[in-house]
């Protein structure tokens, strides 16, 4: 008999139904119908009941873009032992401005702390957005050690030398579709990610910039061709999550032009632009940097096939880690502490790791902070704009409660704004944006929206049949305090966190996408792999039984 838990008299918000005070029944791993009265219900008589008057009940949070596993996360840990609070050589972290929540022990904490702290905020699923194929086994092993969270990965493909060569040769699109499907299956991922399409590889040929219509110096193809080809493949093989794109010209003044060109490149196909805050800069302003948030937001508002996550910046010490070696290298002199790691990896991608300290009183840093918030506030549909800091690039994920408060309170937002560099205050349009997010909108952008964007039909709401990944917060006028510390967290109907205590570890799942494979592609890749990379495809293929509880597979979008 599965465990039955009844959460009573709480304000239930899920973005689907009406927000109201009602009961939620958790029966075994799922939410069940609670349509009969408590007194006459035989199930209820055996249920563990919690009177949650004065509480908020929502589904578990979903972070669709957070760097929690794989090569470069570990590279960052390796580089920065002095930023770990309990290490013998540690230096004091610059104080974070998240008063309701304790800082992480490091900008890139270990897996146990990552799992604990996500759960402590009410998150139950997280997605690593940059799984290098060559490191996929590592990434899955690391995520398996991150407790309390369901995990999945997006496979990096926009700089795969075999793919670039095939595009150069003009192979049929079907061949590329089959290749993408094979790679997703072999590496057990759930989406395709592009980082600076073609640019990581171009940097290996000493090309220092590559805009959307520039030619790759060696392959003589453009990022536009790569983006179109991969977006087409993602749709053709039925991946639920659209092509997940880190645009060209990361962090470069005037990069809004590249970002808009990237949107155009996929010719109306579904597209997700990640850490959009780092990709919407103009060239105006006192230091040649200005906000172009309104241009991007307008495009998102008018393009139903387009979604973004923000990558909001917060002030304090962090570390930036990206596959975009080209632009990370160009920022090397900004590293604080002054050191960085750059890697070039297996004809597939690369990575650059730079520690970074964002400061209130620095013009560009302050401007970036306002641009992220502008995007949040200007994009109208909370189902297509998602709360991320691109952990740890913009800030640690523990900044989320603070960000929610910034979005829900104009006065609070302006209080922080007043501490920024005077030239930021003089030029930013943020004060004119008086929008305050509602609770329903916050729930959509952190639960329902990411679930829909990834294709997780079984979670993100409080509908009967959905997974019983449910969070209880004590209602509080200060949303930062509320979202920083849930009263209870249930995973699959099991109480795993209560009043500051982590209880038993719960089930974990690895989320992958089901794709159809062509036998011919398998044989073709077997030959190519041995010839080009020198080893067998059998060596890299990750078997189902290797993964932690592979029990949640995303069905192909076109087959549903």
């Amino acid at each position: 008999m599965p465990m039955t838990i009844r959460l009573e008299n709480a304000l239930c918000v899920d973005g689907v139904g009406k927000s109201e005070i009602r009961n939620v029944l958790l029966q075994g791993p799922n939410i069940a119908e609670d349509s009969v009265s408590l007194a006459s219900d035989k199930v209820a008589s055996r249920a563990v009941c919690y009177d949650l008057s004065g509480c908020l009940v929502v589904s578990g949070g979903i972070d669709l873009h957070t760097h929690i596993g794989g090569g470069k996360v570990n590279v960052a840990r390796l580089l920065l032992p002095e930023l770990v609070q309990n290490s013998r050589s540690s230096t004091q972290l610059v104080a974070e401005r998240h008063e309701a929540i304790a800082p992480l022990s490091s900008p890139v904490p270990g897996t146990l702390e990552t799992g604990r702290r996500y759960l402590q905020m009410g998150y139950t699923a997280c997605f690593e957005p940059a799984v290098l194929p060559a490191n996929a086994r590592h990434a899955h092993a690391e995520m398996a050690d991150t407790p309390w969270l369901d995990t999945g990965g997006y496979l990096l493909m926009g700089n795969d030398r075999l793919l670039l060569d095939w595009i150069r040769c003009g192979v049929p699109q079907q061949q590329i579709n089959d290749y993408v499907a094979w790679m997703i299956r072999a590496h057990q991922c759930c989406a395709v990610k592009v980082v600076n399409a073609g640019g990581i590889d171009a940097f290996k040929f000493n090309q220092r910039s590559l805009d959307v219509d520039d030619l790759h110096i060696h392959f003589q193809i453009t990022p536009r061709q790569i983006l179109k080809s991969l977006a087409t493949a993602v749709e053709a093989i039925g991946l639920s999550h659209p092509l997940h794109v880190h645009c060209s010209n990361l962090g470069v003044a005037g990069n809004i032009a590249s970002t808009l060109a990237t949107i155009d490149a996929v010719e109306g196909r579904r597209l997700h632009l990640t850490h959009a805050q780092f990709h919407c800069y103009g060239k105006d302003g006192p230091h040649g940097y200005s906000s172009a948030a309104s241009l991007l937001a307008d495009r998102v508002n008018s393009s139903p096939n387009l979604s973004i996550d923000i990558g909001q910046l917060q002030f304090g010490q962090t570390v930036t880690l990206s596959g975009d070696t080209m632009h990370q290298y160009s920022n090397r002199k900004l590293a604080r502490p002054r050191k960085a790691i750059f890697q070039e990896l297996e004809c597939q991608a690369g990575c650059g790791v730079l520690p970074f300290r964002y400061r209130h009183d620095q013009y560009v840093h302050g401007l970036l902070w306002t641009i992220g918030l502008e995007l949040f506030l200007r994009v109208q549909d909370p189902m297509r704009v998602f709360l991320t800091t691109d952990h740890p690039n913009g800030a640690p994920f523990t900044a989320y409660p603070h960000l929610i408060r910034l979005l829900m309170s104009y006065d609070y937002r302006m209080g922080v704004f007043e501490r920024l560099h005077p030239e930021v205050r003089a030029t930013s349009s943020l004060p004119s944006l008086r929008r305050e997010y509602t609770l329903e909108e916050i729930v959509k952008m952190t639960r329902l929206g990411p679930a829909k964007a990834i294709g997780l039909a079984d979670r993100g709401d409080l509908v009967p049949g959905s997974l019983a990944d449910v969070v209880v917060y004590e209602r509080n006028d200060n949303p930062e305090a509320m979202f920083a510390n849930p009263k209870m967290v249930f995973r699959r109907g099991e109480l795993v966190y209560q009043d500051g205590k982590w209880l038993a570890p719960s089930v974990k799942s690895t989320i992958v996408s089901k794709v159809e494979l062509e036998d011919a592609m398998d044989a073709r890749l077997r030959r190519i792999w041995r010839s080009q990379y020198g080893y067998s495809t059998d060596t890299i293929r990750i078997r189902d039984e290797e993964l932690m509880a592979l029990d949640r597979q995303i069905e192909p979008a076109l087959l549903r």
Partner: protein
Amino acid sequence: MICPFCSLLCDEDSFQSVPCGIRANALNAIERFQKTKLASSEKAPQEQIKSATKLLQAAEHILITGRIASVQTARSAIRLAKRLNATMDCAEGGHAFKNILPIQRNGVHSVSLGEARDHADLLIVVGDDSVLSGYPRLPQMLRSSDPSNRVKKTVLLLGDFSESSQQRWQQAGMDTWFIPCKLESIPAALAQWSKVETPSRSDLMGRLAQSRYTAVLWVASSLRMPKADLWIERLMQWIAGQNETTRCAGLVLSSLEGSFQQACTWLTGFPGRIRFQEGEPIYDPSLYIYSKWIESAGARTGNSAIVLIDETVSEHPFLENQVEAGLAIPCIEISATSSMFPCAIAGAEVTADMFRADQAIVARVDSQPECIPGHSAADWLEKLCR
């Protein structure tokens, strides 16, 4: 498949066909590693666990060390170390930290083996003949096997290489240059070519200038000099400087313990050389070194104990000499079972998995008829954790 002995991507179909001295020696040594040793005893497993647990409970100072080659064993060893508030440092720590310390001070530009194989047109191999002793098939591995890759590789051997070493690079089809110089002076020589005594210096400088991508290779374990980490740091700085105008990266070959370092880093935040205190890891690469721990054992009050894990098939049991040197530290020894190295079974055609393709660290088992369920090194460690 990956060679589990030198960790390179040999991808040969049969071990018997590979003319590799390291493999041949290892295959001969496998026989004596087929059994699991715990506390150097032949007692029944439950008895062994009981006595080992008793020993650990009585110890105030515990060192967990050895050659850990798999993620699963690393996880279990770290869990045990945390539970016992033990010190951890692995056998290869001394070599690994020659690279890690300069990286932690200044960072690094690095390239993986596959990328260097495919993309680099100039290889600068720094060191001496021990580079090929440690990685016998390196020249073949770095020769692109892709017939469409028409980039002719040049190898510059910089240091103290014999005629035989030079020939092996030439036999791999690479244009080979050799500049003899003292190992200690190489970073300076690279920085100032004028110090290199060679009539072909200008040709060489021209080749370096023309290089599309230069990979600089060194093997930390072959650098037997004081302050090798500083030597590597200078090399890394030279590489960083090159990237201002061209492309250049260090090819840092990993050891079989690379998987331990990776797992230790994601589990604790540090790549090794840690001590747990009240369950929290403290990192000090200059202090938590296994040899220092053993040396100072006599000066400590309270009982000491070592948990010695060996997942390799090395001919030379780790710590054998140190432990037998009269220090009288009780040692719980956990050796590899065959489960770790299915591809080391001579003639067997089995499939292995790469943990990380970019570093080619270790082969993992797909099927292994000799494996005794529940008796892997990780299984033993888990039992000690309970």
